[in-house]
């Protein structure tokens, strides 16, 4: 369990370090699958259908649907790699690492229930969210920002796992959110911005200003 979370955190750093969008998207996809597996592992005795549904939806949504859409968008815009981001790779890597450490520290501040005491869920969640923010703030290609957004969502999802038994609805809606927002964003990106600006470089999207 914690192993998976650790893996996910590792994937965050990997994603931060990778300049090629392919590997970025792959990282996101793998992370999605990992997250999908987690609810099944979280505790074995009560494995009701809702949890399974959540797991499946996650795997499909995060692991397959969105990555494919992203790849298609990438092909449509024929861009390979993130060139000259606002925030370089090394700095963002360091930031991500620091974020992870900070996450572990921060997580101590919040009291946990005994059954969650051992897990890395909270630090993992915070770490992924920070990573997501780093992407959203640091990168200029729309696709990498979307990936960032998804990582942010993954983080929240991780956190949601704390509640999956008490309030499945919230978690499910979280997934709903991922999929819808993801689809929306990608829809917009692919055939509108592409068409309007014939590029996915968000630096071009600064006409609206004071």
């Amino acid at each position, binding site marked *: 369990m914690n192993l998976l979370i650790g893996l996910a955190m590792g994937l965050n750093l990997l994603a931060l370090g990778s300049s090629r969008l392919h590997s970025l998207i792959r990282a996101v996809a793998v992370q999605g699958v990992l997250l999908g597996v987690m609810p099944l592992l979280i505790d074995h005795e009560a494995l009701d259908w809702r949890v399974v549904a959540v797991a499946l939806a996650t795997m499909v949504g995060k692991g397959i649907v969105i990555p494919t859409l992203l790849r298609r968008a990438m092909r449509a815009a024929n861009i390979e790699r993130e060139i000259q981001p606002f925030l370089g790779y090394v700095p963002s890597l360091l930031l991500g690492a620091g974020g992870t450490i900070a996450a572990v520290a921060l997580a101590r501040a919040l009291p946990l229930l005994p059954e969650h005491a051992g897990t890395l869920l909270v630090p993992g969640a915070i770490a992924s969210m920070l990573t997501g923010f780093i992407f959203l703030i640091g990168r200029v290609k729309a696709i990498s920002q979307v990936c960032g957004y998804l990582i942010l969502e993954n983080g929240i999802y991780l956190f949601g796992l704390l509640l999956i038994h008490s309030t499945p609805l919230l978690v499910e809606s979280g997934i709903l959110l991922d999929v819808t927002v993801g689809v929306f964003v990608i829809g917009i990106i692919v055939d509108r911005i592409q068409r309007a600006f014939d590029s996915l470089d968000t630096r071009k*999207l600064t006409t609206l200003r004071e």
Partner: protein
Amino acid sequence: MNALLLILVPLAGAAIAAVWPNNRTRPWLLPVFGFAHVVLAFWLFINPPVVAPGAWLGFDPLARAVLPAVSLLFLVCAAYGVSYLRIRSERPNRVFVALLLAILGLLSAGHQARHLGLLWIATEAVTLAAVPLLHFNGTPRAFEATWKYLLVGGTGIALSLLGSFCLGYASLHGGGVGDLTFTALTAQGAGLSRPWVLTAWVLLLVGYGTKMGLAPMHTWKPDAYGEAPSIVGAILAGGVTTVAFTAILRVRSVVGAAGEGHIADRTLWVIGLFSMLVAALFLLGTRDFKRMLAYSSVEHMGILSLGAAFGGVGVAAALFHVWSNGLTKGALFLSAGNIRRAAGSPSMDDVRGMSLLTPRSAAIFVTGMFAVTALPPFGPFFSELQVVRAGLAAGHGGATAVFLGCLLLAFFGLTRVVFGIVDGRPRPTTRTNAKRFVETAGVIVPPLVLLGLSLWLGLFTPPILREAWAAAVTQLFPTP
């Protein structure tokens, strides 16, 4: 049941609109279902149903205090929308109409949601449903605006979801059984785990504040309002922000029950004042009269959260302000839309002398501007005065002083822009452009009606309304 109807009727309308074949007659669905919704809403308003404490959805006092305003605003905007879409008949309006009605339904859901998760789902659904409306004009600028709206808004969504998780975990940690209806959370009260509640409060405030458009999360607002059709702007400013505000109020009551009310209030008035200050400073400089409306909306969101921070009386005043601001701002948006269409540009650099080209819209625009800057006897004057009085009564002298200062700065900015575009001699290009725009009754009456409503609201506030606001306050602050 009726509560459900309020949601289902517009959604049904949306479905019908989605399959309605005729592009020319489709817009009429808007006023039809809007009217049905108004009738329902006011019927419920006049004889409010009893809401089961455990219900996830219900026309409870808070919904009763706010929802009718939204529905009223929607009806008028819908009436305007008919003639607007006739002018824009070149564009297909299937998605537009359907989504407008869907938004109405989701708004009703959001206002009536008594469950943390449901509330979140509804508000976010509204956010997402608004997206295609924003780029109705299909210009690159519109897409840029949409993109920013989507990502900033999306971040807000994420944060508020996280906040909801935290609140849920707080109740779980406090020995809750995972019942996330607000009644249950409030009942759990001090049992909630304090650090989690505070974390949740911050996250939810930022999340829903993004949707409300409080500074510094307001950045999407000028772009979206500037590029979207003015009718969408009116509904966003009058309806969607309201949902977010009620959401914050509901959460605030939970935090209050957990015994952290004073901290919540501090954050509320800090962010409120900050929003007002930022908005005022932007208003001093902006040269685009639709973005100006966005900043003015930011300012009024600041007023709302300030009022919410001033305790019971302040909350009542804030609810009053929700009504008055929504209606008045609607009038401003609609008349601004007329002027924008006639002038062909939203910038005061090339728009002048509109009082000669579109006299009626210009008159409404000026009047609305005065109304929204608290000129008596329009609604905002009374509500803002009540906020001031509440603040002074609650001993927030300094905050009130800053508040008044910001009002003054905002007044400078607004008058500067408004008179800049209304007065003077129009440019020849504007003249030629304005020839193509006719001030038909369809585009003049709706904003007039809104102004009239605002006036009526100010001068003859019906006692039943006051009673409704008071009831909402007692719901939020059970202990007197």
